[in-house]
């Protein structure tokens, strides 16, 4: 009987299996003892959803509804209002985390980097109602993953304090009725 046949023979293979398992007595457990020992979650881990602010401290969200459309479980609800200064804001913004599957599609859909997922997964509650987060619970005081991005400074929308053609990528508007070259 050659070596390979011996290794595959019924009784030897069983004994070998038992020996291999027995050797694991001295192997360290792979388990992370969770509540005491937190596992490392990468910065881009898809956990609890937040709404971020632009560098000047204003809300980034323009309530365009793209996140609500992208959401596969329809857990986002919001409504748009236009303020006196021309900025668009969410009148209310509600995420039902008892439905949310943390897929991150809303983050991908967001044109203003407003909605972002964070590496916080400890969302457990005793009362299901407490999992419905309103805008005040979602808003954070920082820009999140894109520190320098400000939507209104990039787009051509006119708001108070920023006229037409004053955005970062714009040139001043041309007077098409003038005679100058």
């Amino acid at each position, binding site marked *: 009987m050659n070596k390979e046949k011996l290794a595959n023979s019924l009784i030897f293979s*069983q004994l070998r*299996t*038992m020996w*291999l*398992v*027995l050797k*694991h*007595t001295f*192997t*360290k*457990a*792979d*388990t992370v*003892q969770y509540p005491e020992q937190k596992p490392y979650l990468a910065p881009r881990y898809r956990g609890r959803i937040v709404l971020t602010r632009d560098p000047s401290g204003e809300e980034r969200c323009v309530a365009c509804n793209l996140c609500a459309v992208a959401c596969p479980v329809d857990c986002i609800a919001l409504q748009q209002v236009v303020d006196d200064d021309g900025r668009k804001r969410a009148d209310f913004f509600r995420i039902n985390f008892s439905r949310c599957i943390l897929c991150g599609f809303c983050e991908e859909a967001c044109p203003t980097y407003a909605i972002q997922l964070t590496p916080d997964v400890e969302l457990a509650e005793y009362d299901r109602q407490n999992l419905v987060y309103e805008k005040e619970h979602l808003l954070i005081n920082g820009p999140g993953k894109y520190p320098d991005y400000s939507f209104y400074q990039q787009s051509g929308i006119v708001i108070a304090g920023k006229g037409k053609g004053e955005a970062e990528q714009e040139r001043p508007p041309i007077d098409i009725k003038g005679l100058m070259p």
Partner: protein
Amino acid sequence: MMPEMLWKLLEITIIIALLIPMAAMLVWVERRVIGIWQDRHGPNRVGPFGILQSLADLLKILGKEDWIPPFSDRLVFILAPIIGAICVLMSFAVVPFSPDIGVSDLNIGLLFFLAMASLAVYSVVLAGWASNSKYALLGGMRAAAQTVSYEVFMGLSVMGVVLLTGTFNLREIVLAQSEGWLIQSQFVGFFIFLVAGIAESHRLPFDLPEAETELTAGFHTEYSGLKFALFFLGEYLGVTLISAMSVVLFFGGWLMPEPLSAWLPPLVWFIIKIMCFVMFFILLRTSLPRPRFDQLLKFGWMVMLPLALLNLIVTALLRLTGVL
């Protein structure tokens, strides 16, 4: 006369009162040890090292609804787990724990053990039948076929021991091993007894009656609450019983070689030997896959039975010629 009987009753009570918590502890030990062998921790939250896990499980299972399926055969359904637990507990009556401890010195102790092991199959078959469901019935049928097949050479494998010691009394079998354990000459018999014992207590890799991957939970699919706990108790007591019988028949019971025997009392040595076997049972459970049912029966009838017969004949011949 009376004080003697009372003393006996007290002894029985103490043995049962120790055996049942021990079976419960075995559940925790098994889960913990399997965890270690699978690079996990196992249950380690309840009490120090999770030692109270079984207590928590017990409290939980007592709080469960004791549900009897309306489609079942009520009386038999209730009776089945009780038969199982009682048969295993009865077998412990003939186990000699130490020179002075042991419920009964039955002169047919070994036969009594085999008879109780045979009766225990009724619990599984009746449970499968009374549950009136497909999975339970399949499990019960498998148990019947498996136990009947493996019983045959379980009895044959220990006949070598009887030949060499000349008695069915388990205490005398132990005492006959004071010169040397029977494993020296009966290693084939021991191997056959162990395999048959695993099949009798339907533990992995021979747990086809309850194979959860194919039969949900086999014969105890419909059981819950306290009756389910009784099945579990029976299973873990069965593991202990087979370990104890292996030690008594082949590893000299409470006896140890000269320098070691003085270190610890005989009962402790007996328990240590049993624990080694229990650990071996758990190791088997973690490492070996379950065979197909026809493979199991074929292995029993085509390999083990001839081997048991051969062992018996060779032992008899050697006995006759005076070698052993």
